[in-house]
């Protein structure tokens, strides 16, 4: 039996204990004293009940729905970049970020929407900042969706290219099983349990087939680009076909292996004192990336680990559907806050899956064969190492790495299918009328929403995409907390508990965007001074290795400068509008009595 301090066990216990304090201590206090949730107050679910969008749902159901909607790839892959600075800072951010900011945002977004009659962030932004503010948000979300899509397409392509090609057949197996289940469910009207049984049998069969029928492409460094193209075709179909035909049954089937994997790695992490799986990565803290690629711990760590600590995407989920189905106000804490803290545990489990791997395997050595920060397929290997002793099989068994690799692929694919559909709807809203109305067309919008990200995915390095995604996502979180703060100021509730996190998030994420943009700008400048190493560092093979494609490296670096600058400008403009609205709200709140309908009462 390994010494208990050499294993991650104590860290798991400590994190669970701190999260318990966050929920039952700080959370309950905020709920009672700041928001003053009232179980007797009518929620939008009752006020506007229509049985479709607005209807009350039990807190257990809504917790499950909220957790499933927020827990995806973020908490699994964010720690991969975060551990660059040592596992200890990454762990402290997962604990502290969630304790003071993460749950507060998810819960606050839900409460804000409930108090605003179930309205989502678009109309609330309009109310607080005017028409320009809402247009600003729309522009920001469009860029944000492009960056998410690029990061996820890159991930799926790399995963299919890894694990000796064993994950492609199971992925196709799940998609075909999903299509079949959709037909059985909606056309043949077969019983849902029977359909689930058939679907899961097909998933298991396709997993087995994946291990004996690996698919390897013959184009060397171009493989990832081709895999990315295949991924885009699948996502195009998913975005165009009716949801009950494709996305819905596929997501339903994907739920089972995805959540089985989560349960397995959490159990694996808790069992480490008995399974002798020890921590191998350095604890840190390293104030700079030891390999000199990513930059300083602040602000990079805080945007690298998004979901699990705090994520802006959650604010959209909390305020769009969950708030319309909240039975009573007091359910917001277990649903919004509880789901976020649970996601923190998922991030912890993922972090542990990296902690038990060797530094060389996780970080690479910077050589052409093993470049820095590129082994994003490390997680399945770590997860297999945690789980293998419990199941009594070898950690190197193909079935285990294929299973965990497949889990990553389906997480990315199912979320990306929804993101692509959302992009299509936002594009329709933005360009539906006027000179550029062709861009609002269903097929054109989907092609743009996948084509542009594909180009980024197959040219830019993965860490660059992930940090831009993290920057945009965390900035959205900062803006969401500012909306919450403005509301609290307007109803004369104490707003400093959300103002401080909002200021921290906005400054940190804007700083991260500046750092990223400056890095790409410096790379282009260095090239003009005859130093090619910087621009090549920021791209992926074959552009990185083929001298004939140097022009592509220059173009992608320049494009990344523009993307960073636009994200920064739009984010800064939005932040300025929100801070102005906040100071105006404070001034107004001092001069008028609190409105009873807002749910606020004068602070004593």
């Amino acid at each position, binding site marked *: 039996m390994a010494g208990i301090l050499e294993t991650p066990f104590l860290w798991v216990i400590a994190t669970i204990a701190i999260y318990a304090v966050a929920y039952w201590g700080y959370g309950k206090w905020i709920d009672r004293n700041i928001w003053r949730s009232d179980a007797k107050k009518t929620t939008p679910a009752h006020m506007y009940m229509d049985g*479709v969008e607005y209807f009350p749902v039990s807190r257990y*159901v809504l917790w*499950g729905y909220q*957790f499933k909607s927020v827990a995806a790839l973020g908490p699994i892959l964010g720690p991969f970049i975060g551990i660059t600075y040592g596992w200890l800072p990454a762990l402290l951010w997962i604990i502290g970020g969630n304790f003071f900011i993460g749950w507060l945002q998810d819960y606050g977004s839900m409460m804000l929407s409930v108090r605003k009659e179930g309205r*989502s962030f678009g*109309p609330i932004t309009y109310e607080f900042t005017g028409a320009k503010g809402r247009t600003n948000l729309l522009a920001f979300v469009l860029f944000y969706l492009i960056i998410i899509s690029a990061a996820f397409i890159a991930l799926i392509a790399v995963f299919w290219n890894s694990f000796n090609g064993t994950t492609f057949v199971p992925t196709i197996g799940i998609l075909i099983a999903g299509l079949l289940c959709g037909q059985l469910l909606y056309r043949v009207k077969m019983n849902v349990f029977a359909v689930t049984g058939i679907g899961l049998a097909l998933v298991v069969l396709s997993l087995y087939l994946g291990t004996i029928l690996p698919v390897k492409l013959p184009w060397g460094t171009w493989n990832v680009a081709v895999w990315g193209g295949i991924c885009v075709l699948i996502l195009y179909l998913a975005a165009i076909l009716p949801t009950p035909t494709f996305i*819905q049954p596929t997501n339903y089937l994907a739920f089972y292996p995805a959540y089985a994997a989560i349960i397995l790695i959490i159990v694996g992490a808790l069992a480490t004192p008995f399974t002798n799986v020890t921590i191998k990565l350095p604890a840190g803290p390293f104030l700079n990336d030891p390999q000199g690629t990513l930059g300083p711990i602040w602000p990079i760590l805080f945007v690298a680990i998004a979901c699990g600590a705090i994520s802006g995407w959650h604010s959209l989920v909390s305020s*769009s559907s969950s708030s319309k*189905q909240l039975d009573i106000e007091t359910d917001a804490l277990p649903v919004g806050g509880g789901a976020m803290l649970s996601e923190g545990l998922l991030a912890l489990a993922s972090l542990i899956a990296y902690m038990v791997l060797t530094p060389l395997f996780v970080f690479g050595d910077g050589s052409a064969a093993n470049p820095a920060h590129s082994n994003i397929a490390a997680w399945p290997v770590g997860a297999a190492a945690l789980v293998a002793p419990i199941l009594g099989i070898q950690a190197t068994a193909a079935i285990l790495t294929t299973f965990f690799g497949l889990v990553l692929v389906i997480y990315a694919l199912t979320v990306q299918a929804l993101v692509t559909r959302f992009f299509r709807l936002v594009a329709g809203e933005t360009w539906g009328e006027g000179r550029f109305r062709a861009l609002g067309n269903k097929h054109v919008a989907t092609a743009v929403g996948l084509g542009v990200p594909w180009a980024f995915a197959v040219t830019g390095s993965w860490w660059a995409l992930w940090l831009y995604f993290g920057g945009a996502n965390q900035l959205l979180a900062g803006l969401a907390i500012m909306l919450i703060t403005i509301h609290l100021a307007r109803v004369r509730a104490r707003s400093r508990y959300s103002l401080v996190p909002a200021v921290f998030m906005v400054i940190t994420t804007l700083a991260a965007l500046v750092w990223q943009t400056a890095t790409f700008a410096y790379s282009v400048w260095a090239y003009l001074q005859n130093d090619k190493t910087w621009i090549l560092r920021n791209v992926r093979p074959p552009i990185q290795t083929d001298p004939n494609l140097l022009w592509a490296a220059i173009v992608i670096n320049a494009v990344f400068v523009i993307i960073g600058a636009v994200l920064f400008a739009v984010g800064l403009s939005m932040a300025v509008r929100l801070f102005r609205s906040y100071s105006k709200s404070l001034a107004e709140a001092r001069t008028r009595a609190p409105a009873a309908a807002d749910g606020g009462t004068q602070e004593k």
Partner: protein
Amino acid sequence: MGDSKEPPSEKTRARKVKEGVKGVFYGMAAHGHVTAALRTRMYLEHLFMFITLGDMLGVPVIPPYYSLKILPYAVPNIKSWKQRVFRERDFTDQVF
């Protein structure tokens, strides 16, 4: 009312735990799909109501003779249809 002050029996507690676990599982696996299916049906119903009762909005899609024939079947849905059609909608409502 007096019953509610008594501590819940083991059986009641077990039933509550079972319901909670069932609820969480349903919420994770199916609730999103059920609401998505409901929304799809809602949009189809909107289309049906618009085609059959378009003249209520000043857009006569089918001749009033047929609208009147369908009216008795459509009446029960008019209130909820109006409520949903007039509701403010935004792109941020479409996330899930």
